[in-house]
C-alpha cells in the first residue's frame, strides 16, 4: 500500500458511512470516494447542511493540531476549536474571546491575557497572576491573602464589577469577561476613566 494513503482506508465500515451520506446532492460531476482528508473536514459540510459522522475518524484524521500553522497554539485552545466546530461562527468567536481574559493592574500600562481554562481553581489562577504581575510590587500580590495590598475584581456578563472569589470557580469562569488587580487603599471599584 502506498505509504501516503490515508489511515481510514483500514476502516471500511467508517468509509461506508461517509459515502452514503448525501454525497450525490452536491454532485458537480466529481465522484468523491472519501479518499481525501480534505473532504472530511467538518467545515466543508456545514454550508450544505450535510453532516458527516466523525465517529471513528477522530483518531484517523489529521486534526488541526498537526497543521504547522496551529503548532503555536496553546493545547487547550486547540481542544476548544475541535469541540466547538459544530457551533455557529459567532458563538465560537465570542466563546474564544472570553476564554482568554484581559487582566490589568492599577498603575501598570501594559495588560496581560490569561486563559481561564488553564486553571482548575482560584489558587493556581492566583499563582499565574503573581507570576505575571508580582514584579510590579515590592512584596508580591499575595491575592486572597489577608494583609495583601491588592484585591482582584472582575467584570461579569452584565458589565458589573465584582470581587473575585465569591462564587465557585466554574461559575466564575463562565461569567468573567475582564479582570483587574486593584490596590486596596484605593477602595472603590474601578470606575475611573483609566478603566474600560
Amino acid at each position, binding site marked *: 500500500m502506498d505509504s501516503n494513503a490515508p489511515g481510514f482506508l483500514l476502516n471500511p465500515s467508517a468509509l461506508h458511512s461517509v459515502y452514503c451520506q448525501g454525497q450525490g446532492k452536491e454532485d458537480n460531476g466529481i465522484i468523491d470516494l472519501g479518499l481525501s482528508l480534505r473532504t472530511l473536514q467538518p467545515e466543508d459540510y456545514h454550508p450544505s447542511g450535510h453532516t458527516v459522522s466523525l465517529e471513528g475518524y477522530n483518531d484517523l484524521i489529521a486534526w488541526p493540531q498537526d497543521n504547522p500553522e496551529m503548532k503555536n497554539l496553546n493545547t487547550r485552545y486547540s481542544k476548544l476549536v475541535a469541540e466547538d466546530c459544530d457551533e455557529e461562527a459567532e458563538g465560537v468567536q465570542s466563546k474564544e474571546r472570553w476564554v482568554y481574559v484581559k487582566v490589568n493592574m492599577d498603575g501598570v500600562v*501594559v495588560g496581560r*491575557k490569561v486563559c481561564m481554562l488553564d486553571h482548575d481553581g482560584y489558587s493556581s489562577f492566583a499563582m499565574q497572576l503573581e507570576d505575571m504581575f508580582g514584579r510590579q510590587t515590592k512584596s508580591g500580590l499575595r491575592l486572597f491573602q489577608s494583609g495583601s495590598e491588592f484585591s482582584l475584581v472582575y467584570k461579569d456578563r452584565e458589565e458589573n464589577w465584582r470581587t473575585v472569589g465569591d462564587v465557585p470557580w466554574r461559575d466564575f469562569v463562565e461569567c468573567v469577561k475582564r479582570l483587574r488587580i486593584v490596590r486596596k487603599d484605593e477602595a472603590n471599584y474601578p470606575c475611573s476613566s483609566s478603566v474600560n
Partner: protein
Amino acid sequence: MQGVAVGRAVDLTMINGYTKLIDELEKMFDIKGQLHPRDKWEIVYTDDEGDMMLVGDDPWPEFCNIVRRIFICSSQDVKKMRPGTRRPMSSMEDEVTVLSFDSAEN
C-alpha cells in the same frame, strides 16, 4: 534605534507564529538577538478595543485577529508610562503597523 521613529509594516499572513514575528522584528530594526530575551525591550500591541497588551499571551490566530499596532519599547520606558496611555511616547519608540486582512480594510 532610540530617537528614530520610523513606521514599518509587517504582514502577519506571511508569519506563522510568535517566534517568526520576533525574528522578523529583530531583522526589521536590526536588533538581532535583543527581542527574544525580553529583558531590554518589551513588545506590546494595541488591540481592536484600544487596549495595550503584552505580545505573546494570546493564541497566534487570535492575536492576528485583534492586533492593530505593535510597539517595541524599552523596558524602562514602559515603566515610565502612565496608565491610560494608549500609545507609547512616539518620539522614542519604534512602531510597527500590522497588515492583516482586517487592518487592511480599516
